[in-house]
């Protein structure tokens, strides 16, 4: 099948890629670029495990045609860490036990990053709303919300969080 060249800036690296008209952005990210952090869960836009940032906004990569992303900037979970140093948000997920099977985690992290980029100190309702398009079948969400809340306000401690081993002042 014929391919068309598109330009994508993925995690700050600009690339030109030949794609087929029926390739999704998720397929390009995972299969062409080998960035396998973003997951395909439902494949129909419900679960959120394929969430990436497209020009700064969280979207479903499984429902995005690669051709529609031509010229856009894409951030995947691989773009959050600085080399081998995890971002504070990622570290907070680990510290708060917010990862169990891990399948939803890349999408959760991307949705959380989008929120914190726009609103560095969201209240818990805003936070839950921002994560409402990401389904987790393991954690019951409480630890994920704790992790993002802590990443948003590490200096103030997090009275609601249930772990004692992260950098904050836990009660």
């Amino acid at each position, binding site marked *: 099948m014929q391919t068309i060249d598109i330009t994508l800036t993925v995690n700050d690296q600009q690339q030109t890629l030949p794609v087929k008209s029926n390739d999704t952005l998720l397929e390009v990210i995972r299969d062409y670029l080998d960035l396998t952090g973003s997951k395909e869960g439902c494949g129909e*836009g419900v679960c959120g495990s394929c*969430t990436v940032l497209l020009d700064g906004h969280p*979207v479903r990569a*499984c*429902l995005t*045609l690669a051709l529609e992303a031509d010229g856009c900037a894409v951030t995947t979970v691989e773009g959050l860490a600085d080399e081998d140093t995890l971002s504070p948000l990622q570290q907070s997920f680990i510290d708060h036990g917010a990862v169990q099977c891990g399948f939803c985690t890349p999408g959760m992290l991307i949705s959380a990053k989008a929120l914190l980029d726009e609103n560095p100190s969201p209240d818990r309702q805003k936070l839950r*709303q921002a994560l409402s*398009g990401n389904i987790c079948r393991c954690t019951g969400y409480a630890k994920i919300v704790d992790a993002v809340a802590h990443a948003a306000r590490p200096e103030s401690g997090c009275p609601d969080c249930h772990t004692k081993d992260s950098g904050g002042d836990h009660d």
Partner: protein
Amino acid sequence: MLPQFSYVRPDTLQDTVRHLKEKNAAIHAGGTDLIGCLRDGIMQVDKIVSLNALSDLHGIRETADGGLVIGALTTITEVAENLLVKQKYPGLSQGSSEVASPQLRNQGTIGGNLCQKPRCWYYRGEFHCLRKGGNTCYALDGEHQFHAIFGHDLICVITHPSDTAPPLAALSAQLKISGPEGSRTVPVENFYLLPVEDLETETVLKPGEVITHIVLPAPAKNLRSSYRKVRARRSWDFALAGLALALEIENDTVTRGRVYLSGAAPVPWRSRPVEEAITGRKLDAATIQKAALAVVEDANPLPENTYKMDLFKGVVEEELNAIR
């Protein structure tokens, strides 16, 4: 893996319409419904015509008379967060905020939201139902707890999935449509087709036609609007029962009222019985009680969705109390 199709992204409306006239061509706006439909194999698409190079179709602007024109490609997030929409038409802002999830609101467009295909699980599944050219509505005798209680005529019992169409219809919005024969304007309230009118399509759009803009008339001085959506999951779901109100209220009396239901019928469903129960009256407890009973007056529920009767009564009661 998606089926194969060709892809074009024309930069004029004229070229867009020319491509759309071809057999099995489909419009791509936000893509969130289209890609799901292609994945589920519920329609044959040979060519995708992307609208995204049509810059005139993006954005929201105020008209000289104080109304708004919303480009069909404006995302649901933009509509939900736009300050003019919030000020003038809270019902539309609320409806937009209730659509799907944050990610889908960032991708999905207001034009696309109005043109969604049905969400019936038989339609989306491997069932050759009436809407796909078959001769059976599987939901009628099957699982239909989320299906219609109005307007189905026991033919096809889908509910229309849009959360923006009911407030737009209540607010008397009009759709600007371009097509092979030129352009035309259709009020949202006349845009949808009941199963008894047509089973092949849900709207009056003809092959080659595309919604370009949504026009909202200037809000009357005493206009109050709202949208309420009840769903099985708070985070992300389609409406079980929804209510869009656009009421003009003077000295506590409803002088004009338009009331639309979602999750109720194959189209956004105008509830004339509720309108009649409240127009010319003060929204006191007795009127609200009458309106709550009136909302299900013409209902024809199915064995598994009679619960929607109480749901609609409750929603009407709560929302009329909230808006008065």
